[in-house]
């Protein structure tokens, strides 16, 4: 044993190492996911069409780690990603505890909303960082906020505000809202109406629609009927399932554009975004993942990158230091959308531009030119400090 050890020591001192110190501190991120997650189940419409299938943003996290290779070398860290799959009965809290015991401190949560809320509460006083890369829900930034939870995906309020700014700029003041039957549709419609109020748009009516062929229900199924009898410049569609809403453009009684779930959509990222270095990021992603980069991919990528940026500026992997840096005003994170990102200290939401896009082009980037704010124009999108329901100790 000692001879082997001695040989090893001799070898290590004799062999020429790289120009840098060979010892590098391992810093692993953990990505938690459930293998039976209904959000990723294939949702096939009646005739087998895939309208709203989602992909796990794991590829985004992997790219973030890959992109950080060189800076890891410069800082003396070796960054890695632990992909942690939870089966049906497995407890995510237990898994976090196990990983934390191994020294892992940063967790990307690809888990259902209720679980994310619960986890943030459960580990509230621990030296950990949790990243919400999946849920735009405003409650998670409001009443259910937690100091340990950071959001790189924009909130629904930010997305709807971006759309509202666009409508105001275009002078499309009168908006007809069509709302699907599901809870998600109601949430979307409510969020848009709040943004409409915030920016002074006039919602001329809110009308429900259903998926049905029953002629007795044609008031809620026939799109020309649904869009007549009221004045509007534009139709906002709240349709998370997509089966009805996809027929709305070109079916409105009056010739009017459609925004929201069809037509012009607000997102944090788009595969056709061409400015500010975006093609490089999109191509890197496409090359490795074999598909287009989605908003959630970007959010997962961003979660890794902001932590690496915090490590590079604080020169430590220590969570209190990282958390302090993330919530401070020294963070300038390259969002690849032209403006530097930073976290809002009142709710830990990453400030960022929003892209308004069609199926193959980004029409405009929000915040739109002309919308001002006393400290940061990015805060014209989403819930501002004075309006926040988040109370953090």
């Amino acid at each position, binding site marked *: 044993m000692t001879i082997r050890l001695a040989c090893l020591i001799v070898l290590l001192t004799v062999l020429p190492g790289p120009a840098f110190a060979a010892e590098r501190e391992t810093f692993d991120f953990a990505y938690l996911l459930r293998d039976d997650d209904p959000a990723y189940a294939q949702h096939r419409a009646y005739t087998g069409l895939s309208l709203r299938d989602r992909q796990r943003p794991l590829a985004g996290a992997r790219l973030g780690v890959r992109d950080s290779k060189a*800076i890891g070398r410069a800082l003396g860290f070796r960054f890695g990603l632990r992909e942690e799959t939870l089966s049906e009965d497995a407890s995510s809290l237990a898994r976090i505890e196990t990983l934390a015991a191994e020294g892992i401190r940063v967790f990307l949560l690809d888990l259902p909303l209720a679980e994310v809320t619960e986890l943030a509460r459960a580990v509230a006083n621990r030296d950990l960082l949790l990243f919400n890369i999946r849920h735009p829900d405003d409650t998670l930034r409001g009443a259910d906020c937690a100091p340990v939870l950071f959001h790189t995906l924009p909130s629904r309020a930010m997305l709807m505000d971006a759309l509202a700014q666009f409508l105001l700029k275009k002078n499309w003041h009168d908006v007809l809202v069509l709302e699907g039957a599901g809870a998600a549709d109601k949430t979307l419609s409510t969020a848009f109406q709040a943004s409409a109020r915030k920016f002074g748009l006039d919602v001329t009516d809110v009308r429900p629609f259903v998926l049905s062929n029953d002629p007795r229900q044609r008031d809620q199924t026939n799109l020309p009927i649904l869009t007549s009898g009221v004045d509007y410049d534009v139709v906002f569609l709240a349709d998370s399932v997509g089966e009805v809403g996809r027929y709305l453009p070109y079916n409105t009684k009056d010739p009017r554009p459609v925004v929201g779930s069809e037509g012009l959509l607000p997102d944090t990222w788009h595969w056709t975004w061409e400015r500010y270095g975006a093609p490089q990021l999109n191509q890197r992603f496409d090359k490795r993942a074999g598909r287009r980069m989605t908003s959630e991919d970007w959010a997962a990528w961003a979660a890794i990158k902001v932590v690496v940026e915090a490590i*590079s500026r604080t020169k430590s992997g220590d969570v209190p230091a990282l958390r302090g840096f993330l919530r401070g005003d020294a963070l300038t994170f*390259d969002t690849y959308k032209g403006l530097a990102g930073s976290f809002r200290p009142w709710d830990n939401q990453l400030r960022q531009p929003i892209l308004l896009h069609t199926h193959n082009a980004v029409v405009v980037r929000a915040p739109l030119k002309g919308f001002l704010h006393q400290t940061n124009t990015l805060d014209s999108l989403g819930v501002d400090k004075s309006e926040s329901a988040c109370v953090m100790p």
Partner: protein
Amino acid sequence: MRKMRLLPGLALCAALLSASGAMAKGTGLVFISNEKSSTITVLDVANQVVKTVDTCARPRGMHFSQDREAFYVACADDSLIAIYDVASQELLGRIINVAEPETFDLHPNGRHLYISNEEDATATLFDLETGEQLAEFETGEEPEGVQITADGRLVFVASEAANLVHVIDTETQDVIKDILVDTRPRRFALTPDEKELWVSAELAGIVDIIDVATLSIVGDVAFLPAGFRKEQVTPVDLLITKDGARAYVALGRANHIAVVDVRQRKVLDYVLVGKRAWGLALTADETKLYVANGLSDDVTIIDTATLKVVTSVPVGLVPYGILIDDH
């Protein structure tokens, strides 16, 4: 084996040209690479467009050859370096299999090209005579600016997405240091005494100043033209005058050039130019500064004595770099 291919029929031409060895007099022509239209716009001494040359796809970085009779153009989307004759703008040859080159610098030996490969997170060394890749260096993501010292000993490469300046020792052919700089480093300028390396940090809105002896940051210069917010100032290209007194910095989306007192590290003035000012070039006598405005498809020419704009000339789509043949 990566070879240089000479176009048939022009091989003799190239041989004759290089054999002439005469001192390049300077045609006075200005070459501007247009990355979106894949062309080079040629201006004459009166700032008139005299020719538009179709190039390989997405031409960006450009450089004169050592004897200034030819110039090299990096074409990212065709993964090659094209070689053009200065006087006639004829294509003389190509170096192929160069991965997505963005910019590059020529070693004082006149034969080695250090190239940043934008999408490969590498910088590569190519031999101009054989067309062979001699070395590859691992960098951070999106390497862009390349700067070689006058003695050819050190090569600096900036990795935009990793916030690093890599230092390559050409003798050991190794990356000897990665310097952490501010957000999104793009391009370089060395002071004439080569004691300071200035690097633009696009997203931080500043220029970092690195002491070359210690390879560490010793200062910075911040920019803020009137009426702009800090986040709108995105410095990219920079030049330092031959006497080391002044620097010109293109401020990107702030649509201005900053004029900087190098020793004081202070901004002296701002000059309004076109949209998204990136590329810069100075005439040999340094009386005129040319600015490539990427998003107004034109080039602005500034009189450096008065700091007034002389004219702006429409060129191709998304102009990137500028070469002036007047040495």
